[in-house]
């Protein structure tokens, strides 16, 4: 590591020398003599640059570490253990009756295995997600289709773009244009008497 650094320093010095040797094109047209650059100043500059780079690298490393740490903590949090299901009869517990047929204990052991499998499954598959569960039987598919169909028809016949007017207006106009003028249809506003009805209900 030290050798690498020395090599780096040498390279940098060389570069600096080369840089110093090459006149900057913007500075002059080549008439003036190059500026004198002492070794110490160059070395100090190189040192400071190295330090900066090192600090940047260190900060970057620490940032990554921080991120990793946080993710680890998040995983640990998410990994919530499920409540253990109530085990009705633990096969390891002594049964009240010793006269058990062998098949029963076998079944119990199977049950235990199944339960354990279920528990494992529950623990492994459990995750917070963005889903809702629906009972398909409750949602009648035909009902949804029918509703879509009806909406289609309604929107094409009565939706925006169709030039519809209210029945009252239509017939009132017809009554007024008649040779024998009649009253407009349904003068009465339906909202009249609503407060009275509300009071009655109360």
């Amino acid at each position: 590591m030290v050798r690498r650094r020395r090599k780096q320093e040498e390279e940098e010095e060389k570069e600096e020398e080369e840089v110093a040797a090459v006149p900057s094109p913007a500075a002059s047209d080549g008439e003036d003599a190059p500026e004198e650059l002492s070794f110490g100043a160059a070395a100090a500059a190189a040192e400071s640059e190295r330090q900066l780079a090192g600090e940047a690298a260190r900060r970057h490393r620490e940032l990554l570490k921080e991120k990793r740490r946080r993710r680890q903590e998040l995983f640990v949090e998410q990994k919530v253990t499920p409540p253990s299901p109530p085990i009705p009869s633990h096969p390891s517990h002594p049964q009240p009756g010793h006269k058990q047929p062998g098949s029963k204990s076998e079944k119990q052991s199977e049950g235990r295995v199944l339960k354990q499998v279920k528990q494992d499954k529950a623990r492994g598959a459990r995750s917070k997600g963005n889903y809702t569960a629906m009972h398909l039987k409750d949602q009648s598919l035909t009902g949804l289709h029918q509703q879509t169909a009806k909406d289609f028809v309604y929107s094409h016949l009565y939706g925006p773009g169709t030039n519809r007017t209210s029945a009252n207006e239509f017939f009132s106009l017809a009554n007024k244009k008649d040779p024998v003028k009649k009253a407009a249809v349904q003068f009465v506003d339906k909202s009249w008497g609503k407060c009275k009805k509300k009071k009655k209900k109360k």
Partner: protein
Amino acid sequence: MGPLEVHRVRFFGLVPAGVRCLAYLPRRRRLALARTDGAVEVYGLEEGCFQEKAIPGHQARSVEALCWAAGERLFGAGLSGDITEYDLQRLRPARTVDGFGGPIWSMVANGGGTRLAIGCEDGSVKLFQVVPGGIQFEKNLDRQKGRVLCLSWHPSGTHIAAGSIDFIRVLDVRSGRTVQRIMVNYHVPKPKKRECVVWGIAFLSDGTVVSSDSFGRVQFWDWERGTLLESHTVSTSAVLSLAVSEKEDSIVVGTSTGATYQLQLLPVKAGSQEKRWVRTKPFQYHTHDVRAVAHSPTALISGGRGAHQAGWGGGVPLPDASSPRSAWLPGLDAQLVIRPLMEKVQRKGYEAVLRKFTFPHRRLVSCARKARLLLFQFSQHLELWRLGSTNETGKDGEVLPVCRMPEHLLQLKSKVGLGRGCGRGLGGLCRPRSAPPRPPQGPEHIYCSCVSPCGGWVAYSTASRFHLYRVQHEGDGVSVKKVPGVPKLLLPAYQLQCASDAGRLFVGSERGSVHVLQLLEPGGCKHLHTLRPPAGTAEAVYLLASSADGNWLAAVSGDWEIHVYSLKHFKHHCTVPTYSCAVTALAIHPATNNLVIAYADQQLFEFSIPEKQYTAWSRTVQNCGLHKAWLERDSPITHIAFNPQNPAHILLHDVYMFCVLDKSLPLPDASTPLLNQSTLKQLPEHARQRQLHAFKICKKFQPLLFAELLEENRLVLVERPLADIRAQLPPPVQQQPFGT
């Protein structure tokens, strides 16, 4: 007869459901009609236009397409995705097959009536074969994205044209593939691009596809090349329905504004071979959308749509060269309009008359004569009202002030029906077999209802239940109690009638049978007997009449046979001689026990039950013949009543008039005007006597739904002004009248 006090009842808020689709059966001259509430009706157009059969609808049932197939079988399909076959004898849906394509938008039968094609929501066209006992799935044709809104078979049965949104396609039936796809929405500039919905389509035998779309255009396409032959813009609003005549020389279209147009194929010059389609006649008979049209040989038929549902699809006429065509146009305003085409009508007369049917030809109002109550039957509830009264008297034509307003006593709502225990099979795994219809959700529609003359009993029947209520009048109010333990009868009941003494209830059922129930006093009923016609019949009873003394009962079934039963011995008494028309009304005279019958061709007969033969007066009427103006009325007589004061009077009414027939007066001959009441009033007494004749007709009260004579010279008339119905309909298309 002296002055009558008229109770002019206008609070029956009936709004008939709009007509959604039509199907014409040329061979039998029958028209099937489906309404927006799922009701299906069949009209016979031969003599008069009488509503012969009516199948009440249901909230969950929606019928979008109706067609006749395999003779006289009626099929309907709707947004529930099922194809239903209707049993016209038992007046109910017979069997249902799921189409498995989502909501079904259109259904058409091919020329021979052997196959049905349905257009579904998912864009597929499915073929079904009509077999005895049901229908069987045959195959799926090519499916493309976009709902198939209308279909039409080519008369040869080899191709089907399907209209969708923005395009039309032609499918080859044998291979099932789409052989042509025509874009309809081609020339509208980009910013104004709207969906072009093809509402109606027809496939002519020369390969022309006629389409009607939502831009108000009727377009003619050459299907092989996919090019537009002609385009007619008939309206600014959508053209919702299309129907072609059998000879393919006339098309009728219905628009959203209520206007219907006829397009005819006429030669360009007189005598030239080249023909072009020309828009000839506009008609404005409806105020709202015309969602179904049909073309019969002599007339254009249209139906109005009522509230919510849109209908489309023109009825594709079944090939039948015999009868001329009319077009039927159903409109949104629940009117069925039959407009005969003048050039097809031979003579100017009754056949050339425009007919409009708004109200059902069934009795929807029952009257409790002694208690002065009226029972109104709506599709999902009943209302019981008490008539108002007045203390004043007046002269002819005066309006008397009402001292006691009519009261709304009771409202009975129909309940949710009983589910019939029928399984649906294995879901979608196997071919759908015909199953009895699924028990639908929601309250059931009421088939029939009646109230007893004393007002104490109210009965009504739905498709799966029979309800009987005991009504107690306590002072000004009523209390209602449901009668439990109603006997399990074969349901539904198609007609109900209470006996005059309120002791018995007659229930008209299927296969011509009538059940007699005894109404027991505190609130119960018992089944006494079931009366059946001797020969047996498959049709259901649709009219009943009972005598005032409780001895006789007359029942009419769907085969138009009138059977008279004796209630003393519970057996069949006699059958009235058969007549070639449907019976529209019947009643038994309280004093003489004569059965008065009105037929769909406006003939009147009087049959004496004890003597088992027509009365002398009836023979006289038949010998002289009825007056021409009487025979040329549009609407059938739906109710017959009698005058308690005068046994020689018969009160008849139809939609536009009511008539008091005085049997003691001479019959009018052909030269006397039939409507002479107004002239008679102006004549002095001695001149009047010379010109009086038996028919006293009043046309002042229209449209009439019910008329009845109560005691003490009171007449009850239930009217339903059309303006009141129209005010409650959904918004019509705004039209800019000239000068506004």
